[in-house]
């Protein structure tokens, strides 16, 4: 009985979140499609032909997984950080705080919204990529699992960012100064075998590196590292961030005085 109510509440938040980014699809879904098309044309076609092969794949095929995952990461994150921050800013977070919705359901609803946008954008970018490169999926289950877990992880990270944010500046600082460098240095455009030993070591402490490699393995069947270890890293981070988010909600950090 109570569970059914919580499920209704979860669905309500999720649908509300999906409607929000669908209404403004020109700002949310279209830009990543255009950006990745540009990446494919410039890096894949024009420059890529000069580069030749990477890890035994055409360069354009090699960068497809990273580009897809990059848009999944930034969109899951962006959706939750901007939606949850604006619910603080406009104060409609209070609609949830006064309701008998457990914190876990609030978190699941917002993260669900971020995952939904990550998936929609990810699929859009995948479709765009099909115009430029013809790859076969190596393992559907691994591909989808990495895709899903990555968007969960970054949606959660966006949630934490929003909790601490006190201004619109605060919601763009992390994406600009942390997320973008981590993704670019996570091996979207290169294989770490090209790096010196020292920089290979540094790459190993970048969690995004594991996701991109796991995803590339799912799509192409090649990876710089062990897939099992990549999953351990991803799931470990999800557990960490989930517990932290729940703790923040329980304390009311950033949302209750």
């Amino acid at each position, binding site marked *: 009985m*109570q569970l*059914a*109510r*919580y499920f*209704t*509440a979860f*669905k*309500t*938040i999720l649908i*509300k979140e999906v*409607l929000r980014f669908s*209404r403004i699809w020109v700002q949310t879904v279209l830009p990543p499609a255009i950006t990745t098309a540009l990446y494919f044309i410039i890096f894949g076609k024009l420059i890529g032909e000069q580069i030749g092969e990477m890890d035994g794949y055409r360069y354009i095929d090699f960068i497809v997984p990273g580009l897809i995952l990059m848009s999944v990461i930034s969109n899951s994150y962006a959706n939750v950080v901007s939606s949850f921050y*604006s*619910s603080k800013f*406009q*104060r*409609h977070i*209070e*609609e*949830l*705080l*006064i*309701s*008998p*919705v457990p914190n876990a359901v609030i978190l699941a609803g917002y993260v669900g919204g971020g995952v939904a946008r990550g998936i929609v954008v990810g699929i859009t970018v995948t479709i765009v990529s099909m115009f430029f490169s013809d790859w076969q999926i190596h393992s559907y289950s691994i591909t989808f699992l990495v895709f899903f877990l990555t968007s969960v992880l970054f949606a959660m990270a966006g949630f934490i960012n929003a909790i601490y944010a006190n201004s619109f500046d605060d919601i763009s600082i992390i994406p600009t100064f942390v997320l973008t460098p981590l993704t670019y240095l996570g091996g979207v455009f290169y294989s770490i075998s090209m790096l010196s030993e020292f920089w290979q070591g540094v790459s190993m402490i970048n969690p995004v590196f594991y996701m991109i490699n796991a995803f590339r393995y799912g799509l192409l069947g090649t990876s710089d590292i062990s897939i099992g270890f990549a999953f351990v890293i991803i799931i470990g981070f999800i557990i960490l961030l989930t517990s932290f988010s729940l703790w923040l909600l329980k304390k*009311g950090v950033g949302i*209750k*005085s």
Partner: protein
Amino acid sequence: MDTHALSIENLCKIYKGGHQALVDVSLQVGQGDFFALLGPNGAGKSTAIGIISSLVNKDSGSVEVMGHDLDKDPVKVKEQIGLVPQEFNFNQFEPVGEIVVNQAGFYGIPRKEALARAKKYLTQLDLWGKRDVESRSLSGGMKRRLMIARALVHEPRLLILDEPTAGVDIEIRRSMWDFLREINRKGTTIILTTHYLEEAESLCRNIAIINCGRIVEKSGMSDLLKRMHRQSFVVSSRETIGEVDQLEKYQPEILDSTTLELSLHQDTDMNSMFDDLSRAGIQVVGLRNKQNRLEQMFIEMVTNPESICKAEQETGQ
């Protein structure tokens, strides 16, 4: 009397930065009551409401709603309460209908039922025609009514309105009052905060007055009004005062052997008071008008709606 609709005990709240917004606030509101929490700006009304409705963390004290303790059973407490906050707090870009339907969803009401209820309450509040409009395009009065519809959609037993008529013009205010009276008549307990005595006077049966985070008065509305419109005099007599039975209608109070406090309705002819005093054998040698504490308070509230507490705190009173 069975359980109270609301019972709070010794509530304290100190905001970050050290401002003590509530000092040991205790209050009881009976089921079915129409209750006013009256006080000037900054008195702590919204803080108290915030704590009751889980928007503000308390520092100490307890809150019970319909017999459920806020700390032990927050879900039960939240289910009982409908809140109309002081500031607009809906998504400005969300359509009116969705705001109400979603709020029902947060309470776990299935969508079909939620739609039916949204229709019912938006119609009652004259907003059904606006259901597809983005909420930001509503007028101030409509926004306020939207928040009332939203607060009612899960059919709470306790409706709390934080300054519901602030910034609402007189005509709409009247119709809002009628609406609230009707809901109350059908059994919903209502608590509202206001800084207009007239609003409390016209709607409420019981009242608490809060100032500087402290409850300074609790009583029935009619009793309060009776007391408000009286003035008191301290009478000094030449000789020791004996029997005062004859002065019963002035609610005499002997302060010491030669001083006596009398209270009379503002319209009472003072000459007749002197006649009555003479008849009682009291020779008046001095007379001092004592400020009516309640009236004094309201005058201050009206003339100086913000600063009472701050001034007091600064001078260390």
